[in-house]
C-alpha cells in the first residue's frame, strides 16, 4: 500500500535526523504534560514514536484516500450556486477523513484539542497532503489561522474558537487582499467602525480570498480613520453571517478544489484580535510567515508528485528502441529534479524548525533576563526571518521548474489531461505568487542577507572539520560563501539603492543555492549515504553561484538607465 511518508527516503531521512530535542522538551513543558493528558509523551523518544505513528497514518491517508480523488477534484472544482460555495465532492470526502482522523490541529495545544506537535511536523504533513492534492492543502493549511488566534487573541476567543478548529467543525480564512491592495497590504481600505458598545463592524470589499466562505475568518481592516499606512490596520475575527456576502468565486488556472472568493462586507460584526494598529505589522506578518513555510511545503509536495510521475513515465516510454530514461537529456532532468527537491525540502524544513525554535526562545525570554538567552533568541530570530522567504522563493520556483520538466519528459502526452503532470504544473504555478510573490520574498530576504545574518548562519554550518572524502565539496562550499560575501560587500560599498534592488533577485538566488549547498553538505557529513545527491547539487549549483556573483560585480546599469527604450 502506498504511503507518502514511509515510501519517501528523503522525508524518512529528515524525520530520523530532526534536531528537535530542545523544541519538544519546551512544548511538552519538560514532559510534565504526560501527567495531564493521556496522549502526551513521557520522553523525547516516546514523542518521536508518536510523531512517526501519526505521520505514517497521514502518509497513508494522503496516498490512499486523497491522491486518488485529486484528478476529479480538479475537473469538478469548487461550486458557487445561490450565493453559496460548495466544495467538490472529493474535497468534502478528504476533509471528512482528515477531520475524523483528528489531523486538523497539528500544533494547537492539547487543552484546545490539538496535537501539540512542533511546526516542522506540520510542515511535513502539509507537504504530503500537497503531494496528494495541492488544492486540498489550501484548506488543510488554514490551521495557521487557529495558530494565529492562539498566539494573539484573548483567552475567551481562544476558548470559544480553537476547539471548533481542532475538531474540524469550522474552517478558516485569512482575509487580507483587496483589489487595490495585493502585494502592498499597507494600502488596505476595508473599513472597521467601532460601535458604541465597543464591538466593531466591517465595510468594504476583499478579493482573491482562499476559502472566503469559511465559518471563522481573520480580517485585516483599517480601524484608524484617516490613517494611510500599515500602522492604521487592525486584525478582526468574523463569523460567517448574512452581512458577509460571497459575490463570486474565481475561475483559476489551477488549485480548482480551493474556492477563491470575492467578498463584500456590509457591516459585518467583528471582534478585535489583540491590540489595535498591530494588525499588519505584527499579527499578519506572523501569520504570513507561517503561511510562507506552508506554501514552500506545498511546492515541495507538488514537485515530488511531478518527479514521481516523470520518472515512472521515462522508465516506461520507449523511443528509438529504448526507454527514454536512458537518454542523457532526460536522465539529467530527472536527476536535477530530485536534487533540487531535496535542496528545497532541506531549506523548508530548516526554516520551519528555526521558526519552532524562535517561538520557544521568545517564550522563554519573557520569563528570563539571561543575556546569553537574549542573544541566542535574537540570532535565531534573524536566521528565521531570512530563511523563511528564501524557502518560499526557492521551493516555489523549483516546483514550477520540476512540473515544467515533468511535462517535457512526457512529451505530447504530458500536455493532455489524461496525465496528471499538466495539473501539477497548473497547481505549482500559484505557489510563486500567493502569500507574497517571489519578488516580495526577495525583498523579504534581502535585509537578512545584506545584514550578514545569513552569512553568520552559513559560517556556523560550514566552518568545521568535514570528513576527508568531503574535502572537495567543503572547499566548494567555502567558495560559495565567499562569493556571496563578496557580492554583499560589493553592493554595500556601492551604496546604490536602485542597483541593489535591480540585483536583488540574483543575490537571493545565489543565497538560496549557497544555503542549499551547506545544508546538503551537512547531510553528507552526518550520513555518507547522502553524499551523492549533495555532490550532484553542488556540482550544478557552483556555476550558477559564480555567474550570479559575476553579474553583481559587473555594475551593469544599462537596464536601469535605458529602461524606457528597452521595454
Amino acid at each position: 500500500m502506498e504511503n507518502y511518508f514511509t515510501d519517501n527516503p528523503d522525508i524518512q531521512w529528515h524525520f530520523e535526523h530532526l534536531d528537535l530535542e530542545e523544541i519538544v522538551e519546551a512544548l511538552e513543558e519538560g514532559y510534565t504534560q504526560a501527567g495531564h493528558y493521556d496522549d502526551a509523551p513521557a520522553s523525547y523518544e516516546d514523542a518521536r514514536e508518536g510523531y512517526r505513528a501519526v505521520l505514517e497514518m497521514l502518509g497513508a491517508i494522503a496516498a490512499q484516500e486523497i491522491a486518488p480523488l485529486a484528478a476529479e477534484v480538479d475537473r469538478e472544482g469548487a461550486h458557487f450556486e445561490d450565493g453559496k460555495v460548495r466544495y467538490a465532492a472529493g474535497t468534502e470526502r478528504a476533509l471528512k477523513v482528515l477531520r475524523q482522523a483528528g489531523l486538523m490541529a497539528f500544533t494547537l495545544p492539547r487543552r484546545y484539542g490539538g496535537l501539540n506537535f512542533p511546526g516542522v511536523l506540520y510542515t511535513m504533513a502539509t507537504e504530503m497532503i500537497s503531494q496528494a492534492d495541492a488544492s486540498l492543502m489550501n484548506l488543510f493549511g488554514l490551521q495557521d489561522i487557529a495558530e494565529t488566534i492562539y498566539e494573539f487573541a484573548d483567552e475567551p476567543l481562544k476558548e470559544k474558537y480553537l476547539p471548533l478548529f481542532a475538531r474540524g467543525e469550522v474552517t478558516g480564512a485569512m482575509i487580507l487582499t483587496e483589489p487595490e491592495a495585493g502585494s502592498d497590504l499597507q494600502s488596505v481600505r476595508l473599513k472597521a467602525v467601532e460601535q458604541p458598545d465597543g464591538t466593531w463592524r466591517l465595510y468594504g470589499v476583499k478579493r482573491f480570498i482562499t476559502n472566503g466562505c469559511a465559518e471563522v475568518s481573520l480580517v485585516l481592516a483599517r480601524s484608524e480613520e484617516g490613517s494611510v499606512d500599515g500602522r492604521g490596520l487592525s486584525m478582526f475575527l468574523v463569523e460567517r453571517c448574512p452581512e458577509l456576502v460571497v459575490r463570486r468565486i474565481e475561475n483559476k488556472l489551477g488549485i480548482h478544489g480551493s474556492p477563491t472568493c470575492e467578498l463584500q462586507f456590509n457591516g459585518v460584526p467583528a471582534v478585535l484580535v489583540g491590540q489595535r494598529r498591530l494588525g499588519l505589522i505584527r499579527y499578519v506578518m506572523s501569520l504570513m510567515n507561517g503561511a510562507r513555510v506552508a506554501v514552500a511545503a506545498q511546492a515541495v509536495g507538488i514537485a515530488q508528485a511531478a518527479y514521481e510521475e516523470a520518472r515512472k513515465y521515462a522508465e516506461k516510454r520507449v523511443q528509438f528502441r529504448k526507454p527514454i530514461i536512458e537518454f542523457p537529456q532526460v536522465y539529467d532532468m530527472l536527476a536535477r529534479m530530485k536534487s533540487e527537491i531535496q535542496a528545497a525540502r532541506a531549506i523548508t524544513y530548516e526554516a520551519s524548525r528555526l521558526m519552532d525554535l524562535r517561538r520557544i526562545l521568545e517564550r522563554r525570554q519573557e520569563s528570563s533576563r539571561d543575556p546569553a538567552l537574549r542573544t541566542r533568541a535574537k540570532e535565531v530570530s534573524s536566521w528565521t526571518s531570512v530563511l523563511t522567504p528564501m524557502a518560499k522563493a526557492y521551493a516555489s520556483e523549483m516546483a514550477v521548474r520540476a512540473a515544467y520538466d515533468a511535462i517535457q519528459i512526457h512529451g505530447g502526452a504530458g500536455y493532455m489531461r489524461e496525465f496528471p503532470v499538466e495539473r501539477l504544473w497548473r497547481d505549482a504555478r500559484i505557489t510563486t505568487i500567493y502569500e507574497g510573490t517571489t519578488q516580495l520574498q526577495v525583498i523579504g530576504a534581502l535585509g537578512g542577507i545584506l545584514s550578514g545574518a545569513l552569512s553568520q548562519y552559513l559560517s556556523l554550518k560550514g566552518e568545521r572539520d568535514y570528513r576527508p572524502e568531503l574535502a572537495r565539496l567543503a572547499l566548494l562550499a567555502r567558495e560559495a560563501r565567499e562569493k556571496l560575501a563578496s557580492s554583499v560587500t560589493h553592493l554595500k560599498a556601492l551604496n546604490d539603492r536602485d542597483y541593489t534592488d535591480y540585483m536583488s533577485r540574483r543575490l537571493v538566488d545565489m543565497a538560496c543555492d549557497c544555503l542549499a549547498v551547506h545544508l546538503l553538505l551537512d547531510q553528507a557529513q552526518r550520513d555518507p549515504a547522502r553524499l551523492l545527491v549533495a555532490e550532484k547539487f553542488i556540482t550544478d549549483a557552483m556555476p550558477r553561484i559564480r555567474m550570479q556573483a559575476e553579474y553583481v560585480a559587473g555594475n551593469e546599469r544599462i537596464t536601469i538607465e535605458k529602461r524606457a527604450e528597452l521595454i
Partner: protein
Amino acid sequence: MRIVVLAKQVPDTKNVTGEVMKPDGTLNRAALAAVFNPEDLNALEMALDLKDRYGGEVIVITMGPPRAADILRDALCRGADRVILLSDRRFAGADTLATSYTIAQAITTHLMPFDLIACGRQAIDGDTAQVPPQVAEKLGIPQVTYVVEAIEMSNGRMRLRRDLGRREEIVEAELPLLITVPRTANRPRWPNARRLLKYRHARCGFELEAEARRRRAEVHQVLADLKARGLYIETWGAEEIQADLSRIGLGGSPTKVKKVDSVVLKGRSLRFFPPDDKGIKELVGELIEERTFG
C-alpha cells in the same frame, strides 16, 4: 446500547509473494504480514457509526495468538471503547465450530446483555463465512447477513438493508441481533490521531512482562497503571470464559483437512459456450455433471 464486534487478525493475502505458500500448499503465516481482516473493519465502522448516531459502547473481541493484540490496539485507535483478547494455547487449531463456541462462551459469561453483534462477512484467510452464523445460533438470536446499511434503530428493532448482489432487501429484525457486513457497506474510518497517540501504549496480558522489563517495574504495578489509564487489553483464557475444554481448540474441532490443492486457473481450462439456446443447454448440462448445480 452495547455493540459487540467480532474481529480476526489474518495474513495479508492481498500482498502475497512467492514464498508464502509452503510446498504442501498451506500458508506460511510467518512470512505474511498480519492485518485486521478487511470486512471486520467494515463491521467496526458500522458499529462506530451506530454509536455516533445512538450512543452506547462498542466492544471489539478477537480470538487469536498474543500478537492479535495489534488489531485490538488498532480498534481502540479507531474509536472502540473496550477490547478483549481471547487467547489461550488450548484455543489453538480451532475450526469454525470450536471458534464460534469459544466466542459465544465469552459473550455469555461476560458481555450480557448486548444489543447487537456486528461481524465482517468473512475472513480473507479461511473464507468460510461460518463463524458469525454459528455464534448467532449458539446465542439463540436472529441473524441478518450481507447488511450494507443500518437504516434505523427504534423500539428494540432494527431496519437493515441487505445487498444480495442482484437485488436488495430491506428487513426488520428484533434486537438482540447478529449482522454480517460486506466490504461494500462503507469505508472504514482511519485511526484518530489523539487516540493513536494514547492507545499505541495499550498492552494485553501477554505483553505485561516485557512492558515491566522496559519500565523496570513489577508486573502488578504495570497492570494497575495500565488499568487506571484505560490501556489494559482484557485478556481471557479458557478459565475466564468457563469453557468446556472438550469443545475448544483442536480437540473441539471435528473438521479435518484431508488435502489442500493449490488450484491455478489457466487459459486452457476455460471452455466457451455459444450464447444461443444450444450453448446454454450444454452449459447447464456441464454444470450439473460437475455438481456445481444440484
